[in-house]
């Protein structure tokens, strides 16, 4: 069917876009990454402790504590949506996980006989299958997150409610449920598998904090999915022009629901990891974290209007926030300045992008 060309098309009028005008180099993520590198160099000269192994581990761990949730919300922001319920979700998943874990580890609790028995001394609790409680309880937390994400996605994609309002409601609902199930008290991961739990969440591998390893793996997966699968392409198309996405036959409803489920799942996983580091899941855990997570995503180049963003940007945003926090501490500046500075950086990052896109 292809018609033979008399001559290949020549681009007489249309110039080639230069490499520095495309891809990462022309994105907000690129600029913020440059700023981050500048900041790291400045920090090195400002404080000899900054690049010490201990401090680096600290930084890596701290930013990993919001970065996984940031990956998830970046996905939602790319589709042009928003999820305000991530902070509550982190808390609720962590809570469900630790409650299931301690419940199943207490002989006499419903279902616990399947998992534990008392040792001969009548006091020590022994797991029937080591690790099984851990798996079941983490799954319980993640499935809870998936259900909440599905409800978010269903309300937004099928019922047509606004993402802002839906997830604002969900923020309150999930936080409230957290207080209901825990009666306002914190819950603690306990039982025979608690050691595994702490090893997985706040341990390290050859000096690299475990959360950081999860983050790198998840970010790599997300980058591949976004740029090399049709799901990722549909996510971008949805944020670029939702009507076009619909007209070209993209399953808009399904993609939206999936995106909110992934976001909630990431938040849930993040919450579980944070609770391992805290050693408990208090009912007020991760309160207002949604603002940090959204701020990190936006600084990293995710555009709240939709259509722009990526895994690298999410991480860059989180690292930048953490380096600033860490830097202010090392410089012995009052930590109250941190929040002010974060606000300034959000506006600056968006402003630079605005100016750049106006000049090209």
């Amino acid at each position, binding site marked *: 069917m292809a018609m033979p060309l008399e001559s290949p098309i020549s681009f007489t009028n249309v110039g080639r876009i230069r490499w520095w005008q495309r891809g990462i180099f022309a994105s907000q993520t690129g600029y913020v990454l440059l700023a981050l590198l500048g900041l790291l160099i400045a920090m090195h000269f400002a404080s000899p402790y900054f690049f010490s192994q201990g401090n680096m581990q600290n930084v890596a761990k701290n930013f990993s504590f919001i970065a996984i949730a940031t990956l998830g919300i970046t996905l939602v922001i790319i589709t042009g949506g928003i999820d305000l319920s991530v902070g509550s979700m982190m808390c609720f998943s962590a809570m469900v996980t630790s409650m299931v874990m301690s419940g199943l580890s207490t002989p006499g609790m419903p279902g616990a006989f399947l998992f534990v028995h008392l040792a001969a001394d009548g006091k020590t609790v022994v797991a029937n299958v080591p690790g099984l409680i851990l798996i079941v309880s983490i799954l319980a937390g993640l499935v809870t997150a998936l259900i909440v994400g599905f409800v978010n996605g269903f309300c937004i994609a099928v019922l047509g409610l606004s993402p802002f309002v839906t997830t604002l409601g969900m923020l309150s609902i999930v936080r409230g449920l957290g207080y209901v199930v825990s009666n306002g008290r914190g819950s603690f991961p306990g039982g025979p598998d608690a050691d595994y739990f702490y090893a997985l969440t706040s341990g390290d591998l050859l000096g690299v904090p475990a959360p950081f390893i999860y983050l790198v793996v998840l970010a790599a997966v997300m980058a591949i999915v976004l740029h*090399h699968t049709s799901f990722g392409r549909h996510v971008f198309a949805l944020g670029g022009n939702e009507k076009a996405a619909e007209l070209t036959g993209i399953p808009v409803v399904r993609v939206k629901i999936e995106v909110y489920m992934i976001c909630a799942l990431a938040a849930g996983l993040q919450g579980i990891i944070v609770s391992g580091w805290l050693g408990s899941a208090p009912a007020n855990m991760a309160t207002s974290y949604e603002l940090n997570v959204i701020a990190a995503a936006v600084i990293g180049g995710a555009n709240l209007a939709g259509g722009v963003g990526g895994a690298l940007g999410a991480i860059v945003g989180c690292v930048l926030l953490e380096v600033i926090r860490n830097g202010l501490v090392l410089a012995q500046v009052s930590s109250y300045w941190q929040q002010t500075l974060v606000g300034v950086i959000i506006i600056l990052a968006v402003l630079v992008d605005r100016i750049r896109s106006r000049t090209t």
Partner: protein
Amino acid sequence: METAGTAGQPVLELRGIGKEFGAIRALHDVDLQVFPGEVVGLMGDNGAGKSTLVKIIAGNFRPTVGEVRFDGDAVHFYRPIDARAVGIEVVYQDLALADNLTAAANVFLGRELKRRVGPFAFLDHNAMAARALELFGELRSETRPHDLVKQMSGGQRQAVAIARTRLSNAKLVMMDEPTAAISVRQVEQVLSLIHRLKEQGVAVMLISHRMPDVFAVCDRVVVMRRGEKRADKPIRDTSPEEVTALITGAKEAA
């Protein structure tokens, strides 16, 4: 050029199409034939029934009465995707492009080419870019597959939207006001794109308000007024004045 396809089987045939929305009669007893390689201009004032007719052909609406035949067979479209499956493509007025994606990504949106690696399917970027470049070549459009649609001119955007219809080897392409919002030079590009489609035996329905464009590319013009077909004649047997009179109702029918 000889009026195309006066012989042979029409690619699209409408028989006695009527559409009512409650008490409102949007279309009444419309018969229409479109032949392969023919460009038909569909004209009419706002509310004349053009868009209802287009939406019936594109599968957005079902007709209240009448029959749609495509390639000789009666067809029933329940959704736009059904119409696309038999070979009807629509280029929408706002083009339905995602600005943040590249030209190639837009051409293949919803129909991405994939490469299987084990259990996973990954996008085949090279194959899509190569095929898109080929399509732009056929359309004689200077459009690079890797450029973002955001950075493109109106004419290039049209080329991307039209290239999308070429992907499936559509037999009928309906274009809704393709020249409404672009510059004079780009109008010329779009009209030449329509010529390219015609050369390849594709039937084109051009819905337009712009008389010069219709007279520049169409073989035949169909005028709608008050939900009825008032005229259907070869372009060489009519004049812009007559068509204007038919659209406004100064002349009842021709």
